[in-house]
């Protein structure tokens, strides 16, 4: 019979075979695409929310003092125990799953945005004040651009957290999805298939991060070129 560890840690060949059998048979469309859709939706919402909240919080020390404990409170709650509450408010379908993803992704974006905005260059801030650059234009041309290196760090973090949360969200009220399928494999002791799913998650993360890197190189071209950063 199988010994425990070889059963739970199948060889690469087994995983490879399972990978081909499992994911190239329609599952890619049925399970992976909807998951990916929810992931991107949640990520987008988290990005908007994180930056949208982070900028005012970063700009106003009073707002920061008021909201920080509340935000820290929610941040410390594990998403798996937050899910029931989200289900109460958002039901059990797609909105709930997207919200779960948002609830995890938003933090690195929010925190990094707040810190990025706090650290904006003072001379540039003065320049804006002098030349009457304010309101939306100040946001777009100064605040967001100036904080963008740190915002990008947050978005980068959030990408992989989003994938993790995608899996967690599908552990509730699901009957399909990549995360659900992995959990189901685990429960059904189809271990090679489970690892193949994890492999797919990793590849997914890798693919998304390559895309992200491209985007970042464009958005932060000035930053890496300017000598404000050395990389």
């Amino acid at each position, binding site marked *: 019979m199988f010994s425990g560890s070889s059963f739970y840690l199948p060889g690469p060949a087994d995983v490879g075979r399972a990978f081909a059998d499992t994911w190239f048979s329609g599952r890619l469309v049925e399970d992976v695409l909807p998951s990916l859709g929810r992931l991107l939706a949640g990520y987008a919402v988290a990005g908007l929310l994180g930056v949208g909240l982070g900028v005012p919080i970063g700009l106003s020390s009073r707002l920061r003092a008021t909201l920080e404990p509340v935000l820290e409170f929610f941040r410390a709650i594990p998403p798996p125990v937050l899910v029931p509450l989200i289900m109460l408010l958002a039901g059990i379908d797609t909105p709930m799953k997207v919200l779960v993803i948002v609830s995890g992704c938003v933090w690195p974006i929010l925190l990094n945005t707040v810190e990025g905005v706090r650290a904006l*260059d003072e*001379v*540039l801030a*003065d*320049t804006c*004040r*002098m*030349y*009457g*650059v*304010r309101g939306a*234009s100040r946001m777009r*041309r*100064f605040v967001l*651009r100036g904080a*963008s290196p740190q915002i990008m760090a947050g978005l980068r973090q959030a990408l992989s957290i989003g994938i993790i949360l995608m899996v967690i969200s599908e552990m509730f009220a699901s009957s399909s999805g990549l995360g659900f399928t992995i959990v189901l494999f685990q429960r059904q002791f189809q271990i090679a298939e489970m690892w193949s799913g994890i492999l797919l998650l990793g590849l997914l993360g890798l693919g998304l991060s390559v895309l992200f890197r491209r985007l970042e190189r464009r958005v932060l071209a*000035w*930053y890496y*070129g*300017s*000598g*404000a950063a050395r990389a």
Partner: protein
Amino acid sequence: MLEISSLNKVYESPGRRVEAIGSITFDVGAGELVCVVGPSGCGKTTLLRCVAGLLPAGGGEVRLDGVPVTGPPPRMAVVFQEYGRSLFPWMTVRQNVELPLKEKRVPTERRRDLVAGSLEAVGLGDAADAHPWQLSGGMQQRVAIARAVAYEPQVLLMDEPFAAVDAQTRADLEDLILRLWRDLGVTTLFVTHDIDEAVYLGQRVVVLSSSPTTVIEDLKIDLPPERDQLTTRSLPRFGELRGHVYRQIQRARGER
């Protein structure tokens, strides 16, 4: 136009207290060009930041057209001593110069002319599409000057704006500022280290002591209004004024 009365400023941080400005009083009439000189660290930048409404005064007040300055007044332009940090690294040179004009809702056509004209005037016509960090120090400083010039301000504050450029460029820029001042009647407060420059440019030169800073002399420059690099600088009166200011600064430094 611009009245500075008993202005005082103290920087306080744990373990360090600097009275940057003791008490400064002088004023600048509408359309006047006043130069400020004083030893390094005497509070010139601090003064300028107070006048610009960027720094709250500790005591005394600054009035512009009779109204106390509490924040940056409209139609005022500043060239910061830290020119490098005052340019937006994510914008090209052109975008940097254009930004304030966009904010002022200058029509596109006119904006383009202003930007091109001011960049040309500072000798950067062909660097418009570069980013600031692709430029040399002196070029960056000239971008900051071009931005202020294109803005067509009513009040212009400049903090050692020519520190990073060579002698010849400096002379050209001096004449640019003189032209701007004369043609548009811009009220100008000009901080410099170069005594020759102060005497050459200013209608008046305000000499500051080292900190705690006060005004030790408010000198009227009684040179003919039309100035010219060669003739003005070779006037005997120029030499006298220059020598006078030099001795005053010596005194200012000696007193500390």
